[in-house]
């Protein structure tokens, strides 16, 4: 099964990357862009065919490695 995990910074946490990208876009003259926040995605092959099982494995992976839950949120999506 294929899964996508999206990890984004919690609200209020400073995002220096997003800030720099915002500035970069502006100085390229690209108009009409407001705030930018950057996050990560992980495209993951999960061996299990069972949805509930896959989700629990991924949740474990997020909590323990993929996301830094002190400052980040994560979201898990499973492909059909």
């Amino acid at each position, binding site marked *: 099964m294929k899964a996508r995990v999206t990890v984004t910074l919690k609200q*209020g*946490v*400073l995002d*220096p990357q997003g800030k720099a990208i915002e*500035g970069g876009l502006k100085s390229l003259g690209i108009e009409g862009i407001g705030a930018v926040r950057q996050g990560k995605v992980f495209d993951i092959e999960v061996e299990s065919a069972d949805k509930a099982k896959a989700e629990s494995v991924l949740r474990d992976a997020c909590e323990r490695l993929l996301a830094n839950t*002190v*400052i980040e949120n994560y979201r898990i999506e499973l492909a059909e």
Partner: protein
Amino acid sequence: MAGRALFDRAQAETEMIPNEPKITPELVAEHGLKPDEYERFVALIGREPTITELGIVSAMWNEHCSYKSSRLHLKTLPTQAPWVIQGPGENAGVIDIGDGLACVFKMESHNHPSYIEPYQGATTGVGGILRDVFTMGARPVAALNALRFGSPDHPKTRHLVAGVVAGIGGYGNSFGVPTVGGSVGFHSRYDGNILVNAMAVGIAKADEIFYAKATGVGNPIVYLGSKTGRDGIHGATMASAEFDENSEEKRPTVQVGDPFAEKLLLEACLELMASGSVIAIQDMGAAGLTCSAVEMGAKGDLGIELDLDAVPCREEGMSAYEMMLSESQERMLMVLDPDKHDIAEAIFRKWGLDFAVIGKTTDTLRFVVRHKGEVMADLPIKELGDEAPVYDRPHIQNAIEPVLPPETVAAPMANGEALVRLVGTPDLSSKRWVWEQYDHLILGNTVQTPGGDAAIVRVGDGPKGLAMTTDVTPRYCEADPVEGGKQAVAEAWRNITAVGGLPLAVTDNLNFGNPEKPDVMGQFVGCIRGIGEACRALDFPVVSGNVSLYNETQGRSILPTPTIGGVGLLDDVRVHATIAFKGEGESLILIGE
């Protein structure tokens, strides 16, 4: 802010001041103030404080800013020598190294934040100490650190080590300062409370040092650097609160470091200082705007008025309370020469940083904070610092571990086996894995890289050089605080002399448990006594430092860990010693007892 109820009684003269939410004993306790401390504050201002004022005083009077438990004892340390330009009390210590140059240095802890979020905790620790050095007009030329982690087999240790090391490197490498030395130790007593002490060393012209003392009435107060967000609100309070089992849940808003912004801030500040625009400047560290503004005013015997509407904010709807307590990183506060406004602003714009006039100096000796037209705080500025509580906490002298005569100790194993065991311990193993993640070669002046006794960094094109080291042996301090304190200083001294340097001065970072416990306070007092004695004997004054108390988890305190950062001078770096054998057939000589 609409709909704020005005407090009725005793408020006639300060009617503007909103009083919502009402201050309750719970709120006071949440701010880390003891009931008698709160009473002291109420007596001082003659009325009930606003929430913003409570926040301000909690920041000013917490252990981290007020040194209330340690002040009495710190005063006993020797801080003077003919080569000392500035001792403790400023952002960093300053010593004269000849030829019109000064060395500016300090060490500071970021222990609790690093346990909660090791990468960001370590980065913001490094960022803070670098700012302390360049606020004084010095360009940072080296960084060091002293790290203590829990037992290697504790389940959290691996994660903490990896995060802290990556964070220290992540910040220093990007900022562009070589991280040239430090120490790493492991012990189960740090399982729930690691230590991250960061030191920075800079070079300035001896007659171009910048201080925090504001001068002149009506001068603009300028906000510099990155925007203010809700980072680390309550961080300063947290840094002085004991951890309990729940602290991992509480997870206050973590500060995130931006070394890129700091590098720009460095370049902009040095350019600004060179332009002659700066009257006084202060880094916004713990409890950012509050501590920096109060300190600048109080030192200069001036009042300060701030208008928070002008503060560059990252988030919408920030309250006065939040702005006053935010610990967003990479920010500075300065008193500007009004004639140089345009020059100064142009420099900051060029580097893409915020520059905002947010207030002015006054002759009222009051600290007045306005937001959306309302006065949110109006406090006597000198008393906020001067009247902070000072405690002579009870301390007992701990039982000193006896010295065991060697003949009474049976060898637990054969020498060969013992040697192998020792070499394999995490404390003695090679730290290459750590320092290879730090750029220790940038700037092209690192004469002695990590791996020697003390690091050596050439000053400019030479021939002068600085030797520096961080040292402490916590188990000695536990066994005998006075001797342990002495030993830490002596080791720093020896490491500097071993590379050929003349030891000049030290910075210290005193990491201890809960000072309200007489035995912990006894360790603290003992170590300071030892440090003082050794520094006096060696003519090695303390010019800056930092105290970190309440390092304990579930009632168990860390080993007493007074880290000593020593700095020495080599007149000619070409003449220095290293630990490597230079050839076959050389003689080995043992010096000392």
